[in-house]
């Protein structure tokens, strides 16, 4: 069916939708919106705010690590006498910042941006759906997340302060330290939000795909979001259960995670006992290991889209990548206890979890290799999104490979709980995932606003961030191999074995502050481009996927003026014989010709 006929057939479908859109007031349209695009942008902006906030916490901590015991310049006096008397940070406050940095970055920053933001905005457009399957639930999931975020923020100002037992909240410490209750309440909100969102994502992908869009024609990003949604759906509830039990321990004085005979500061704890701290670790890591893949899979999806678009050739090994993502998602549920090699579990189970950990590295390597091989022989356009996407590959590679020694119990015994671990997972998440998220923002910004972001500012942002971030995290491997523990509020000053590597603390801190400054071009660029950016066409990157080829920029309520239909796979770039170097998914084959002969169509139809 050609486009004119489709338009005639479906003309009545979208006409009322437009009328509906104009009828909505400000609150319904921009605040309590049920439109997946608005919700996606709300998620993205809130997520970016929390990323900046979480980063700021680290900026303050880095002062303490570089210059322990010295008053914090400029902002020291704002932190309050309770936290930093005379501008000098107290250990308790350092612990609060550490715990909240992790919590905010993971649960309030990266996941909401990667899944809530990109997933919500891009995924329905890529599958040719008018919206998510359950718009009201979608709205609820954002606002529940928002409340969770507010609870976390407010906890800094409550009498006990914020949580201070690390983002992992290990019992029994978390059961008895102040500030944890608000963390748990906040987490219950965040978990509920993720559950609502994940149900919506899975139903949308299964039910609302456009006609002709079979599973093997879905963009890689959609596959990544699909698997991510399953991880959220099935891995988060155990943490919810654990959070409920920890809440019971704190509020109803039960002893789920408190063993008998616990002595705190010389006093036996007045609880019934009989619990087990390891139970918390099991339930926590049952979520938190899949959560690692929740952080990384959407990033891989974004990089896949951008690499195909900017190399002007199909993704190398698309099918294998899809199967790898599914396998990765499955395996991520049976590796969690590699975080617990030091808990004294039996050697049989250690061996089991080592094995599964080694196995799960295979699909990750497959995906990364496929992405790198995709570059080969391409005529690469080094746009800002592509720079970030290209940098993702070696950075994620470093993060992944440094994880192998941690997945093997013998080497983990030395490296456990050192800065090496911090270096490892930050390489995965910061120059890995967050770079991919930046790439995604630069890439889809024209779709959301109809304007591009400034390339020069983008490149300054990229190169500055790229150089600084490596100076922040690379020295962590050195410190960790030396045996320096994480979570030391003086940066390891009082340990003899840490003396030879202490000077790196200053280098890392200056690099972190530099990294902070290099985010300014991005912030300026972001806001400037919303109003002043160069106006562009609906498909400025000359891409093939449905969000670019069938929807205007920005897409109206209901997304598509004509109900889209998919005729081919997602990455038909540089098809021999086709006049342009991209063949849109929505481009029909010429009438009377067998499928897949669109290359024979004369130019001018896209």
């Amino acid at each position, binding site marked *: 069916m050609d486009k004119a006929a489709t338009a005639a057939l479906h003309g009545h479908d979208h006409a009322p939708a437009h009328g509906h859109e104009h009828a909505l007031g400000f609150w319904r349209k921009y605040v309590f919106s049920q439109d997946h695009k608005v919700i996606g942008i709300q998620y993205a902006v809130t997520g970016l705010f929390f990323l900046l906030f979480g980063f700021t916490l680290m900026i303050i901590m880095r002062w303490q690590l570089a210059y322990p015991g010295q008053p914090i310049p400029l902002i020291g006096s704002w932190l309050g006498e309770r936290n930093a008397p005379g501008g000098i940070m107290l250990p308790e406050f350092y612990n609060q910042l550490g715990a909240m940095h992790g919590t905010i970055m993971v649960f309030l920053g990266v996941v909401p941006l990667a899944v809530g933001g990109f997933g919500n905005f891009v995924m329905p457009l890529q599958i040719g759906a008018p919206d998510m399957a359950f718009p009201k639930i979608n709205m609820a999931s954002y606002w529940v997340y928002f409340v969770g975020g507010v609870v976390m923020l407010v906890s800094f100002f409550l009498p006990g302060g914020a949580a201070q037992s690390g983002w992992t909240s290990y019992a029994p410490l978390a059961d008895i330290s102040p500030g944890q209750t608000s963390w748990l309440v906040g987490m219950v909100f965040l978990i509920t939000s993720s559950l609502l969102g994940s149900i919506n994502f*899975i139903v949308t992908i*299964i039910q609302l795909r456009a006609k002709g869009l079979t599973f093997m024609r879905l963009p890689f990003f959609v596959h990544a979001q699909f698997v991510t949604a*399953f991880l959220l759906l*099935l891995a988060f509830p*155990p943490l919810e259960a654990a959070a409920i039990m920890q809440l019971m321990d704190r509020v109803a004085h039960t002893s789920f995670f408190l*063993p*008998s005979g616990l002595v705190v500061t010389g006093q036996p704890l007045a609880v019934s006992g009989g619990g*087990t701290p*390891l*139970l918390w670790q*099991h339930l926590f890591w*049952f979520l938190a290991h899949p959560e690692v893949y929740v952080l990384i899979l959407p990033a891989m999806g974004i990089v896949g889209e951008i690499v195909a678009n900017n190399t002007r050739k199909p993704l190398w090994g698309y099918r294998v990548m899809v199967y790898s993502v599914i396998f990765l998602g499955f395996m991520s*549920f*049976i590796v969690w*206890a590699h975080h*617990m090699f030091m*808990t004294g*579990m*039996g050697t*049989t*189970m250690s061996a*089991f979890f080592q094995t599964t950990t080694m196995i799960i590295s295979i699909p990750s390597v497959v995906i990364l290799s496929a992405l790198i091989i995709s570059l080969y022989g391409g005529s690469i356009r080094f746009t800002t999104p592509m720079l970030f996407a290209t940098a993702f590959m070696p950075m994620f590679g470093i993060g992944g490979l440094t994880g192998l020694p941690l997945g093997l119990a013998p080497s983990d015994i030395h490296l456990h709980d050192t800065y090496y671990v911090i270096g490892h997972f930050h390489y995965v998440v910061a120059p890995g995932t967050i770079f991919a998220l930046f790439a995604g923002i630069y890439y889809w910004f024209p779709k959301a606003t109809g304007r591009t972001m400034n390339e020069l500012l983008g490149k300054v942002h990229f190169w500055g961030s790229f150089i600084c971030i490596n100076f922040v995290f690379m020295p962590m491997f050195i410190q960790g191999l030396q045996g320096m523990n994480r979570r030391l509020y003086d940066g390891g000053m009082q340990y003899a074995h840490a003396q030879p590597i202490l000077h790196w603390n200053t280098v890392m801190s200056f690099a972190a502050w530099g990294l902070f400054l290099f985010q300014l071009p991005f912030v300026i660029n972001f806001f400037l481009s919303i109003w002043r950016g160069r106006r562009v066409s609906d498909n400025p990157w000359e891409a093939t996927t449905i969000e670019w080829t069938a929807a205007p920029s920005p897409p109206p309520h209901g997304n598509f003026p004509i109900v889209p239909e998919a005729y081919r796979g997602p990455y038909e770039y540089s098809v021999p014989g086709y006049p342009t170097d991209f063949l849109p998914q929505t481009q029909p084959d010429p009438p009377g010709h067998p499928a897949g002969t669109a290359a024979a169509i004369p130019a001018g139809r896209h």
Partner: protein
Amino acid sequence: MVDLHAGDMRHHVRLYVRVFVALLVLTAVTVAASYLHLAVPIAVTIALIIAAAKGSLVASFFMHLITERRVVFGALVLTVVFFLVLMFLPLFTQWDTIGQKVQ
């Protein structure tokens, strides 16, 4: 979705009543078994088998799982696999110390 005719309906109702009776009988059996005060391993086995039977009846007939679509089965099979993982792997990690005081 097709509307049910009165005849189909009577058939359905009969089925629901039969399932109901089966559930009542199984409940009675499991309660009765508990009064025998059997050794824990045997009692657990009996109770779980009966509970699983009752659960399957509810899921199959009341929740219509027996005629449900493949997609739903796929999601549920996945869930059951991870449920079993969650049930047993933590237990196995403590296999050496089961029955002793947990430190």
